[in-house]
């Protein structure tokens, strides 16, 4: 791994102004709150958290679809804002969750996959067709699908088309936003295997957003846990799954239902519902749902404490830890 991370977020914040009611004054909603992350070349960073925690907003910022309110996004050490968007699109490509809505139903598979080449004026039509044939072969689709339409394909095939479209410009970074959650179990494993192969073959870097922790554990080498716009724990995949620190990470991992009959359904102790992000709880945002909450958790926001392979934001650790 080189020293410069291929993708870096420095104190990125995205604030939306949300109006509740016709005459109400807009209130700020911090969808992404002071997030700093680094992804090295060839790494897979898993980003996990419940719906509404800001995972997808973060993905949009990385794709240049949203501008951060504060902070910087750096690709290869250069700030994104300084580069133009088409240059960015060559280097960062998305794969979305739902292959049924992310492919234009009125375009043929050839049109869909070759669009990035045409947008960037890469090669003539003969070389574009050659590129499409190659990429179809790589993602495991027969060349004859070029003239078919998305409606004629299964969910797994569509997701392969979405992967082909993302990879045809040979990007360095792929943002996978829940790429397998709309797929059947047997298809999911095919797509996960394909993503793993492609990473090894082309040295791709993934930001892998998912709420399925079993999948994240399988594919990622680093994991960031997000809660209400903040990264509450970041660690290597071994660090998180074997020695998780944050009580929220613990609750998430306990919710994973492994196929072990007779174990019953775990009690996550996450009693209260997900808080309203417009009006987040004071102190540590997680304290109303935390089984280990202490008096200071509702008073002050926890500091970020470095750990041996990452960091954690919790009053249980570091200098702020209770001396017992």
């Amino acid at each position, binding site marked *: 791994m080189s020293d410069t991370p291929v993708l870096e977020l420095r104190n990125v914040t995205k604030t939306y102004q949300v109006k509740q009611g016709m005459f109400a004054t807009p209130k700020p909603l911090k969808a992404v709150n002071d997030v700093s992350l680094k992804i090295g070349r060839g790494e897979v960073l898993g980003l996990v958290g419940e719906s509404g925690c800001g995972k997808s907003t973060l993905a949009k910022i990385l794709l240049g679809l949203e501008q951060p309110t504060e902070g910087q996004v750096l690709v290869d050490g250069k700030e994104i804002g300084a580069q133009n968007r088409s240059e960015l699109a060559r280097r960062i490509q998305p794969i979305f969750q739902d292959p049924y809505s992310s492919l234009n139903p009125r375009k043929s598979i050839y049109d869909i996959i070759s669009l990035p080449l045409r947008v960037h004026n890469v090669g003539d039509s003969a070389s574009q067709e050659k590129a499409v044939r190659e990429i179809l072969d790589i993602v495991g689709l027969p060349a004859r699908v070029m003239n078919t339409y998305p409606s004629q394909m299964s969910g797994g095939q569509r997701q392969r088309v979405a992967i082909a479209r993302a990879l045809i410009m040979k990007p360095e970074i792929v943002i996978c936003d829940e790429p397998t959650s709309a797929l059947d179990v047997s298809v999911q494993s095919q797509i996960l295997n394909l993503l793993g192969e492609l990473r090894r073959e082309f040295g791709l870097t993934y930001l892998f957003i998912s709420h399925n922790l079993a999948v994240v554990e399988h594919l990622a080498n680093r994991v960031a846990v997000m809660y209400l716009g903040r990264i509450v724990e970041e660690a290597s995949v071994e660090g998180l799954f074997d020695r998780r620190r944050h009580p929220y990470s613990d609750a998430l991992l306990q919710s994973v239902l492994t196929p072990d009959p007779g174990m019953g*359904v775990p009690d996550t102790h996450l009693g209260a519902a997900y808080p309203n992000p417009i009006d987040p709880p004071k102190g540590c945002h997680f304290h109303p749902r935390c089984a280990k909450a202490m008096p200071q958790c509702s008073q002050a926001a926890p500091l970020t404490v470095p750990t041996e392979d990452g960091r954690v934001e919790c009053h249980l650790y570091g200098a702020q830890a209770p001396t017992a």
Partner: protein
Amino acid sequence: MTDTPILSVRNLTIDIPVGGGTLHAVRGIDFDLNRGETLCIVGESGSGKSLTSLALMGLLGKKISRRADRMEFDGIDLMKTSQRGMRKLRGLRMSMIFQEPMTSLNPAYTIGDQLAEALLLHKKVSREQARARAVELLEKVGITAAKSRLSQYPHQLSGGLRQRVMIAMALMCEPELIIADEPTTALDVTIQAQILRLLVDLQKELGMAMILITHDLGVVARVADKVAVMYAGELVETGPAADVFGAPAHPYTRGLLRCIPVPGKTERGAELGTIPGIVPSLVGEVSGCPFRTRCDHAVDACRQPIPLREQQAGRHSFRCVHPDGRAASPQEVPA
């Protein structure tokens, strides 16, 4: 628990007319469900699991044909029950929880009205009694400030809360059978665990029988007493959860279990098992084993009718030409 099952289904068959002929969506499935028991029907999309549940509730579309040698709910022949008769059963003695809490609640009515409806329809109660019962159930499914929720509309609630309302609604008349079709698929993992716990606890408390339809093997393992694995309209394997997961007999069941990464068991980054190929078309004549085109153990005999193999005195059964679900020398045989 009595010996007579509350639900008994033999040779249930569902055909759907399509442009090019008939789609044989469900072909001759059998199962029994005892009081207080949980049956999980697991299968991939298009396997016919949701159609099966709709057939039990009498909610199939008019053009869809449903046949069965037997389909009895507590001695009532559901095949012969009229629409009016079904309406009396639904909500009162058997009720259903749907997958999408976003779309299965009526956005134009308050939570309170929708909860009270089933009770007012089936039982002689006043509006006040119905609302009191609604509050009681909302509290039971873990909704805080239950009374104030009654006047709220579905859009004012989060997904997890809406699914809790759906569960409360299904329980209003204390049904004996509850059918939950992918009740947690649209929810976060944390909420999924809470909702499943709630369902299991309520089921034990009220002694209901439950059919849970899902594609998630983790959910099945944690909740089921009995498991039925469905593939392309057939039950390929049924049995107690411990046996189906501990000693899966059908090649499809084994394949499915190899496909999912299991924290602590599957090596990180290792290649996952896959099931090559795609589900066969069920339009027109369907014969032999539907899984043979994707099966490593397929032989010529798989095109013939497939015998039902029974183990443990009929408790664990599967459909395969091989007595133990394995060919002597597994290999890819083109179908």
